[in-house]
């Protein structure tokens, strides 16, 4: 079966920068793909490109986004509008800024259904209540008339999810959906997203900076750095045997709950410098921060090497890296 979404060699350009370069990945129905990276990695712009909601100054300068056998870049604004919210939906990090503060949540959920499914006001309201139940909001028939400010952060994100799945989309893009939430609420919301993914057979693109979330909720992972995919793997492989120096660096930089490592016993392994150093870098974007960088790393951008069909890494020196003892001091 062909994947539901295929992104091929996507490059996004601003007048003076290219925040996403030559990015390819695919997602199938019922599958969760996590895109992980830090601020400035291009992960959120990628999400916006999938929705064709890029800021005015940004353009897709090359590549294809094939969704359900249609190239989204070839659609006009009207065709895209019909797709958006119906077949592709998106939820954002901060639900309060995505919800209209002067409309009830029932009205806002209902609006999606009125537009896309031509429901009447009454029918839309009924469906809104059903959807609030689906996302486990207690006393849904009362809550439907609440305004966003009357809800907690977790509840607001549930409302966003209710809106997103109202038309049973084939693809859900979740951009840092739980970053603004507490851990106990995060667990509830991710549980909910995962249940809906299974029930609706949705493909999910989960954008996050949280490696723990990736490990526990993704079917496969794309690691981005400075606009490029530097590694792709199944989550188990990624955490047991990270290949790219950046992935290795991230894993050893993060303190772990299940580890005796303490400040009295040693320093955290830092990644020196910052992502800003990737700007204008001719070769590997990670070279200025890489402890294993060699002269040849500055010559050209390292191509992605497929170790297996599921395992890609954009670093030619991964096999020799394994010999470096300090590179993966992390005990998982």
């Amino acid at each position, binding site marked *: 079966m062909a994947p539901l979404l295929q992104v091929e060699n996507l490059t996004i350009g601003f007048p003076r920068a290219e925040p996403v370069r030559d990015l390819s990945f695919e997602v199938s129905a019922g599958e969760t793909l996590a895109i992980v990276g*830090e*601020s400035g990695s291009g992960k959120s712009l990628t999400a916006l490109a999938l929705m064709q909601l890029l800021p005015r100054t940004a353009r897709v300068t090359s590549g294809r986004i094939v969704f359900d056998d249609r190239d989204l870049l070839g659609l006009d604004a009207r065709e895209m509008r019909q797709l958006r919210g119906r077949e592709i939906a998106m939820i954002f990090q901060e639900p309060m800024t995505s919800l209209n503060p002067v409309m009830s949540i029932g009205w806002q959920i209902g609006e999606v259904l009125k537009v896309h499914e031509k429901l009447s006001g009454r029918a839309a309201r009924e469906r809104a209540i059903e959807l609030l139940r689906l996302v486990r909001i207690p006393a849904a028939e009362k809550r439907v008339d609440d305004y966003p400010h009357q809800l*907690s*952060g*977790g*509840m607001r994100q549930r409302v966003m999810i209710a809106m997103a799945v109202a038309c049973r989309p084939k693809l859900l893009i979740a951009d840092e959906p739980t970053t603004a939430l*507490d*851990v*106990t*609420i*995060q*667990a*509830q919301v*991710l*549980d909910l997203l995962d249940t809906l993914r299974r029930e609706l057979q949705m493909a999910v693109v989960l954008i996050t*900076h*949280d*490696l*723990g*979330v*990736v*490990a*526990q*909720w993704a079917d496969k992972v794309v690691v981005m750095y400075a606009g490029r995919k530097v590694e792709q793997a199944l*989550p188990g492989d990624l*955490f047991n045997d990270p290949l790219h120096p950046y992935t290795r*660096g*991230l*894993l050893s*930089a*993060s*303190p*772990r*709950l*299940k*580890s005796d*490592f*303490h*400040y009295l016993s040693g*320093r*955290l*392994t*830092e*990644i*020196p410098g*910052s*992502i*800003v150093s990737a700007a204008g870098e001719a070769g590997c974007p990670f070279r200025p*921060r890489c402890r294993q960088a060699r002269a040849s790393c500055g010559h050209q951008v390292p191509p992605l090497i497929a170790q297996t069909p599921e395992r890609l890494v954009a670093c030619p020196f991964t096999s020799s890296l394994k010999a470096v003892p300090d590179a993966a001091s992390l005990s*998982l």
Partner: protein
Amino acid sequence: MPLLSASDLKTHYNTRDGLLRSVDGVDLVVERGETVGLVGESGCGKSTLGKTLLRLVDPTAGRIEFKGEDITTLDQGRLRNVRKSIQMIFQDPFASLNPRHTIGEILEAPLVVHKAGGRPERRRTVAGIIAKVGLPADAINRYPHEFSGGQRQRIGIARALLLNPELIVCDEPVSALDLSIQAQILNLLVEMKKEFGLSYLFISHDLSVVRYFCDRVLVMYLGRIVESADNETLWSDPRHPYTRALMAAVPDPSRPRQAAPLGGDLPSPSDIPSGCRFHTRCPLATDLCRVTEPEFRTIKPGHQVACHVADHIN
């Protein structure tokens, strides 16, 4: 004598929705040289507690002592002296740096306020601290917007260190930073602690960071400390059901996924549940918990918990 102690500390606010009991009876101690973690979810009162301890917010009741001196009702003039010794680092360094001042001006201001030396001496102090926190020397003439998030937090740390404090209250100092930068800042805080003999009260929602960074941990829920233990004990033998739920909720690559450990939301601090304030979300709540607030009791030396059923948990 502990460096900082608070007893039955309360910070209440009068709001339209009634009395907001943000901090509602907290006892705590920070010993000299100790790093104490304060963890809890948003709305539990941990930031308000931090600000109350510094007297940035006035307590409604209770007592705060710094090196044995009661600072609960100290007037602003005398408080200024104490503030030399207790500093704060904030979550969002950008919001706490004046965008129109250069880093040199920002860092010189506390020295001027506290009359620490003449101009040349102040300049030397600022240059020294800038080097110490790993900023380039030319930072002095630049403005906050020219720096990345990690560098701004270094500026915040530099400012906190200027007056040779004994205690720094760190309110989510690495929460806004990317993972690769977070490690740099945590390492810097550890170095500074060793070099200046600092004590920290480290407010955080991130248990993994607290696990690495703290000597002792306080778990806060709805305005109260519900568990307190040394780092090792807390992670190996957590007793309060809330502590356990928090730990279980952290997604960790090294263990399989678990069902969400807690249902529901944090109740509002203007409508705190009767009895044990956690009973509305607690999987182990009994009738006793619904009626009687558990006292914060010592279950073994150095380990305290406010729970009726803590002894029966396995």
